[in-house]
């Protein structure tokens, strides 16, 4: 079979449906990656417009451009959109698009899950934008601290949009994280051991695991706060045994790792692009991997530095201050490795390189002010001032947006297959760079002069007027720069001339295919022997197109790729991917109804839509097929391989493991909340509470043991044990419900209800 016939055959197998239908039924990672990126950019534009409204309001003292109510909504939605609807999804989009191509495989581990995550993101994001257009957007700040966000501070529906909408969007993040983790560990080109992985894949892996462990505390917090708002369960009300600080703990348990969840993918892009721009290889690959993994873990020990002024004990201050300064070390290791790479290469000042230099100049300042606020006495002075606003924008725009713009210009030829022709991007770069520093550098001073963050206006005569006016003008300059970037990208994508396959002379596998890429990525899968396969073998793309790699014969007419051993990258089995389907979109729409039912308090819709989601999930699993035993099949090179369905650890098994990791973190956060309230709240447990007796505990234990035994034995014996086991568990549930008092009376009772609910929710799945 020649290359053209192979291309046609593979395109027939892998292509998305034609026309408009294809938008809703595609499960292809290239299409979904592009869609993720496009929607994330849309939300960036929305968030940017909100930022301009904020700067317009603050340009002069006592401005009446926005009233306080609208200002609060605009400010809250700016932060919410940029953090949840732009930054994380942009990483997801980039990873969804790039990872299979970089790793030398044909798709992500669970194509339909990618589509489900994407549609959850779209519907959840639409819910948030609708709230803005309807004038009922969240207005308690992007961190939603109670009591500002509880029914006392915000009786309207506004915070519910945040709590429910963000939880909906987080399904997308968790889905993408499971997807990315399993893909990086199991779906690589044969021969690509962990130590030969592209550096971006390491960063994506660390980020994905961080999402799996960082997002559950926020999901839990959102559920608890919504339970408090909707049903009066007083988790965060001091008078009823709760504590508003519990929310801050749960939020920042997510919130600080979130900063690194945003920074690490950008660092992955930098580590990929910088050596290519410097025409050399990356210095200190091993140290960079170690630094990325360290950052991923250490970042979970810093959350309290956002709460230094809440009156936590001195020991806590010392603990978290120490951890906060420590995290600068792995960050610095990466910075020095990148500087070393630059110094050993011959850097060329292409546009991606300009953005990387802007990153260095900006992020280092943000990092240093970060070390300043990690020191408790300084933080006490600067907390809740514009110094912090300036610091976080230096970190987030310098550490994420600038590297992502470098990534945009670097991979643009890959997305479009065209070379960058028009030079608007250079003008845009300087406008954004000077606009950014003009806006935020001066705001450090405004903060040190005492300007508090989140204020909707201020009085004249405090020395803030000139700073704010310059910041606002610079902000608009930056906005014009971003608009020019968008225009530049659109023009280059539509009218620029066709470019060569590997315009930057890079060594990673995403450039070993024609651009824009075919839906199957590689006509045959490569065998990898180094980190930069294209440097070792420039003819590799041609050989792959000729079908000289793995799975070069499309004769079985189905979507196939190879899964590998985690460490060595040795071929393990063939995975057969499902075809195009609207099921993920349908399921996410029904999931949306579930959340809408809760938002609008139409609770009859909740069980109906939950049943719909379960029905879709069952159909999803049932339609996967793969029950036929085919035996070992030829893959074109090396030994024959079984299909995934015939092995003991198919991809679904791995996906379940990582989903359980997220679930375990959720439960751990719940226990943390219980222990926190126990140590902090007075009257814990309340004096009128009847402690559950030993009888209930023993009945529960016996029930769980019998049920577990029953599920492991043959059908007759299973019934003998499982039936009484389930009865015992039901009795336990009823007895507990009779004992536990009104959940609205005290946070202790409310917490017990949630713990019991968690247990009951998991019991049927276990059985």
């Amino acid at each position, binding site marked *: 079979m020649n290359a053209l016939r192979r291309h046609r055959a593979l395109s027939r197998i892998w292509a998305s449906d034609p026309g408009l239908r294809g938008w809703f039924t595609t499960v292809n990672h290239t299409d979904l990656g592009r869609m993720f990126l496009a929607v994330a950019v849309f939300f960036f534009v929305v968030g940017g417009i909100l930022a301009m409204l904020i700067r317009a309001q603050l340009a002069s003292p006592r401005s009446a451009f926005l009233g306080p109510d609208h200002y609060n909504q605009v400010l809250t939605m700016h932060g919410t959109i940029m953090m949840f609807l732009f930054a994380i999804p942009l990483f997801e989009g980039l990873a969804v698009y790039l990872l299979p191509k970089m790793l030398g495989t044909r798709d992500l581990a669970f194509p339909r899950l990618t589509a489900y995550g994407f549609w959850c993101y779209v519907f959840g994001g639409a819910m948030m934008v609708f709230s803005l257009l309807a004038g009922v957007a969240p207005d308690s700040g992007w961190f939603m601290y109670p009591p500002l966000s509880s029914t006392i501070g915000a009786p309207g529906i506004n915070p519910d949009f945040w709590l429910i909408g963000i939880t909906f969007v987080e399904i997308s993040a968790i889905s993408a994280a499971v997807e990315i983790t399993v893909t990086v*560990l199991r779906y690589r080109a044969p021969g690509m*051991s*962990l*130590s030969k992985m592209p550096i971006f894949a390491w960063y994506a892996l660390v980020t994905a695991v961080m999402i799996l462990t960082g997002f559950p505390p926020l999901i839990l917090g959102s559920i608890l706060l919504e339970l408090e708002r909707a049903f009066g369960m007083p988790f965060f009300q001091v008078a009823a045994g709760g504590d508003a600080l519990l929310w801050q703990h749960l939020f920042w348990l997510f919130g600080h790792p979130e900063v690194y969840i945003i920074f690490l993918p950008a660092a992955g892009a930098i580590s990929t692009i910088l050596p290519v721009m410097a025409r050399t290889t990356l210095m200190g*690959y*091993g*140290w960079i*991997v*170690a630094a990325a*993994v*360290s950052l991923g*873990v*250490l970042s*979970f*020990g810093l959350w309290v530095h956002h709460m230094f002024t809440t009156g936590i*004990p*001195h*020991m*806590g201050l*010392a*603990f978290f201050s*120490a*951890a906060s300064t*420590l995290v600068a*070390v*792995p960050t610095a290791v990466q910075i020095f490795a990148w500087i070393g790479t630059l110094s050993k290469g011959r850097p060329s000042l292409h546009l991606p390189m300009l953005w990387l230099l802007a990153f260095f100049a900006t992020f280092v300042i943000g990092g240093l002010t970060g070390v300043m606020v990690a020191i408790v006495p300084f933080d006490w002075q600067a907390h809740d001032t514009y110094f912090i606003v300036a610091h976080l924008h230096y970190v987030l725009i310098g550490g994420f947006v600038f590297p992502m713009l470098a990534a945009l210009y670097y991979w643009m030829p890959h997305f479009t297959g065209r070379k960058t022709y028009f030079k608007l991007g250079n003008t845009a770069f300087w406008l954004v760079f000077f606009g950014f520093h003009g806006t935020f550098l001066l705001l450090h001073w405004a903060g040190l002069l005492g300007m508090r963050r989140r204020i909707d206006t201020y009085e004249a005569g405090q020395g803030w007027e000139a700073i704010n006016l310059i910041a606002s003008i610079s902000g608009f300059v930056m906005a014009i720069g971003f608009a020019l970037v968008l225009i530049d990208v659109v023009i280059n994508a539509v009218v620029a001339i066709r470019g060569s396959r590997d315009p930057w002379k890079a060594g990673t596998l995403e450039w070993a295919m024609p651009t824009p890429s075919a839906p199957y990525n590689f006509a045959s899968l490569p065998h990898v022997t180094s980190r930069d396969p294209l440097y070792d073998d420039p003819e590799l793309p041609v050989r792959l197109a000729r079908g000289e790699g793995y799975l070069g014969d499309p004769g079985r007419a189905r979507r196939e790729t190879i899964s590998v051993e*985690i*460490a*060595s990258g040795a071929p393990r089995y063939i995975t057969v991917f499902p075809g195009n389907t609207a099921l993920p979109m349908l399921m996410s729409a029904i999931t949306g109804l579930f959340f809408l039912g809760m938002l609008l308090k139409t609770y009859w819709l909740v069980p109906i839509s939950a049943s719909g989601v379960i029905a879709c999930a069952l159909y999803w699993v049932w339609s996967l097929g793969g029950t036929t035993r085919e035996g070992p099949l030829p893959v074109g090179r090396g030994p024959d391989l079984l299909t995934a369905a015939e092995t003991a650890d198919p991809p679904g098994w791995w996906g379940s493991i990582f989903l359980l990791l997220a679930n375990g973190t959720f439960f751990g956060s719940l226990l943390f909340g219980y*222990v926190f309230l*126990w*140590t*902090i709240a007075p009257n814990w447990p309340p004096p009128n509470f009847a402690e559950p007796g030993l009888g209930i505990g023993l009945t529960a234990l016996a029930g769980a043991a019998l049920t577990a035994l029953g599920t492991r034995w043959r059908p007759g014996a299973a019934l003998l044990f499982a039936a009484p086991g389930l009865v015992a568990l039901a009795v336990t549930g009823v007895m507990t419900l009779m004992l536990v008092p009104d959940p609205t009376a005290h946070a202790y009772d409310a917490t017990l209800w949630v713990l019991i609910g968690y247990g009951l929710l998991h019991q049927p799945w276990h059985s």
Partner: protein
Amino acid sequence: MITVLRLSLPLAIWLASFSGVYGLHGLMCSSRWAGPPIGLSERGLLIGAAILAIAVQSLCLVVLRAPKWRDPDPAMRRIGLALAAIALVAAIWTLLPPTVLASCM
């Protein structure tokens, strides 16, 4: 999978010891927020827990260097050892406060 465990073990131990020692401090102080400092015996327990955590962390580094346990891939072995060293430094640095501070305030 063993390689992934080797990579994640050192910092997982740090995370556990960090949570454990800080949690122990919280439990000890739970009855005396804004009250008198932690007693000598309780402080001894905290210091003991910190020393134990550092000892486990050091053991992890030693084990990952042992021929029987180290990764066959030299690059992964170096990364694993770097992570173990970072985790040990992190443990010493972050567990220092319980050994010098006794206040619950």
